[in-house]
């Protein structure tokens, strides 16, 4: 890590990881929903239901990784010594949002993945 620990969350890289924690979960959820919705008719005609599971699993893993990244940011903040700066206070807030957002959207991806196991893609 090139930036000093206390200023990591002011650097472009630090800010990117914070935003990734917040936004990756919702974006992956949206991707999962849209791609699976698009693939339903194709899964019906081709019989490859496994692809629907694969999309959901990939997005779920991505959301969980975003959560892991946010948890890592939290650890990094806790290890920072000295009085909390304005930027660290803001970073702590973004970290909390990132952790909650990632795991909440992982839950939504799971909820949307369950019908893949139960319903037939050809069912009307």
């Amino acid at each position, binding site marked *: 890590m090139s930036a000093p620990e206390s200023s990591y969350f002011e650097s472009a890289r630090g800010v990117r990881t914070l935003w990734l924690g*917040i936004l990756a979960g919702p974006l992956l959820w949206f991707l999962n929903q849209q791609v699976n919705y698009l693939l339903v008719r194709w899964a019906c005609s081709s019989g490859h239901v496994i692809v629907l599971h694969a999309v959901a699993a990939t997005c779920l893993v991505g959301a969980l990784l975003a959560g892991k990244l946010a948890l890592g940011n939290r650890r990094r903040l806790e290890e920072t010594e000295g009085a909390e700066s304005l930027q660290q206070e803001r970073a702590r807030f*973004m970290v*909390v949002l990132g952790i909650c957002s990632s795991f909440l959207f992982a839950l939504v991806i799971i909820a949307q993945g369950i019908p*893949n196991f139960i319903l037939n893609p050809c069912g009307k």
Partner: protein
Amino acid sequence: MNPEGPRSAAVLPTAGPRAADARASHHDLDRVWSPPEGLYGWLTTTSHTQIGRRFIVTAFIFFLLGGILAALMRLQLSHAESGFLSPDRYNQIFTMHGVTMMFLFAVPIMEGFGIYLIPLMVGTRNLAFPRLNSFGYFTYLIGGILLYAALLLDIGPDAGWFAYLPLAGPEFSPGHRMDFYAEIITFLEISALVGAVEIIVTVFKLRAPGMTLNRMPLFVWALLVTSFMIVFAMPSVEMASAYLILERLAGTHFFDPAAGGDPMLWQHAFWFFGHPEVYIIFIPATGMVASIVVTFSQRQMFGYPAVILALITTGFVGFGLWVHHMFATGLPSLGMSFFAAASMMIAIPSGIQVFCWIATLWTGRPRLRVPLWFVLGFVFLFVMGGLTGVMLGAVPFNLQVHDTYFVVAHFHYVLIGGAVFPLFGGFYYWFPKMTGRMLNERLGLWNFWLMFIGFNVTFFPMHELGFRGMPRRVYTYLESTGWEPLNLLASCGAAVLAVGVLLFVINVLWSRARGQAAGDNPWGADTLEWTTTSPPPNYNFHFQPVVTDRYPGWTRGPDSPVVVGLKDDAHEVLVTTTLDAVPDHRTTFPPHSIWPFLTAVAVAVIFFGLIFTPWAIPAGAVLAMAMLILWFWPKHHVLHRGHEEDAP
């Protein structure tokens, strides 16, 4: 914006005691920021407080007009086989009721509150892109007037606010009625889009120094999320209505299956906008609720990060629900199940917010004033509407009650309960700031209880009417159906509701002239708008504040730090960084101008002309282009000032 000056100590405003800078005088600031007098001033102003108030007043007038249309429908439906309205008139009225409430009232009034309050809440002097703000208001006003003119001339849209194809197409809707819909909706939504862009830039770049993301008021967060939703949702309806224009004007076949088109394309595009629209209306209302709850419980918001998480989650998941409006269209059940799951999961962020509000009130010292009564009414009604929403998210139940009055009951509980009640709370809460006078408390309580009782008497029976099979959008029904008693009850409730709204209008008119003087912060509120005078001066703050915590209204004192060094002889504002609101540079906003108004008129010429001829595009485009050139023509004084800035 026109950035001036590099990031250097010599030009950056810094924090210090306000006595440190004697240059900024109220007189000079007022002279610079005040719009011209009279009609010319009305047409040229770029003041966010004036334009915000106009949005609010205009949207409220449209709310009253939409309410009159609703009252006409209730009169028609109060008796079986009534001949009060003809089927054709009824179709126009229910279409215009929906169009009014969704396009002309709900979104503009929420944006109006944002336009008025956000610069005050983030501690700056005006909204970003002030001329665009003026342009946005005039597009909205002209669009609304054109739609109502069409209705009064018996050429109002008549295929529902959703304008499903093929009903809204040239084959089944000949004449110009649906042309008005397609053109004016496309035109109107420009206003919502520009408003959203202004709010996003203001929130990200014009916050007072020290107002980091985690110190932003919840109302500002709510409007930020809403504005992003508008930016992503509105293009969808713009595209759909543009296709409808082409279908009707140029004979294209986007929606015609016989020619390779698909009517489902309309439904997808419309509801990709239409469902987020519900949250575009609801989320600002939650921001109002949060402001009122914090102020009237006199404690910090319980679970501030959780509420923001809920806002962001709602903003995203709101885009994943639209197919639940299309469960009856024969889509694959697996595909629908994704949207059913999302429709139920969105209850989680809404639930988080409700619990946080209740916890804040529970652990605070609630003062039961009129704004809080409206919030308590909102919580009750919104939970009711939310529960029926979860029911409608289940495909089998949805199919059973599809297109019945159960759906009408549900969305009125969500939209009136979830948005109009907080909005009335917001009126009572911010009226003192906007006018310097308090609304009458006793009339306010009558206003609340009449609206609350009237609303429930009107819309609760509609659940039962839906269960009994009464379909939506029918102009009458047979006596043998047995629907008459409940319809009569609903109509009586509507009368009570209307009296409640009338009391509010009386209260506003009376209090505006004779209300008790409000003072700067009559409620003991926590946000920055309450630290300036009521009503705020044209420049908002004598010195722009520096924020040191999340509740500056409670913690700021006479010696609190302020921004010094901004020019008082120009529309100069401080630009800060996106995340941490660190001073970055100064910028000068353009002065008041007539060109935004004239550009709005020119754009209106294009869309209005397109109702009748495709030649309106080249003719109007030339006119609009000329207006834009004049709008952006470099002004001598701007060039001159830029030259001065660069001088050593």
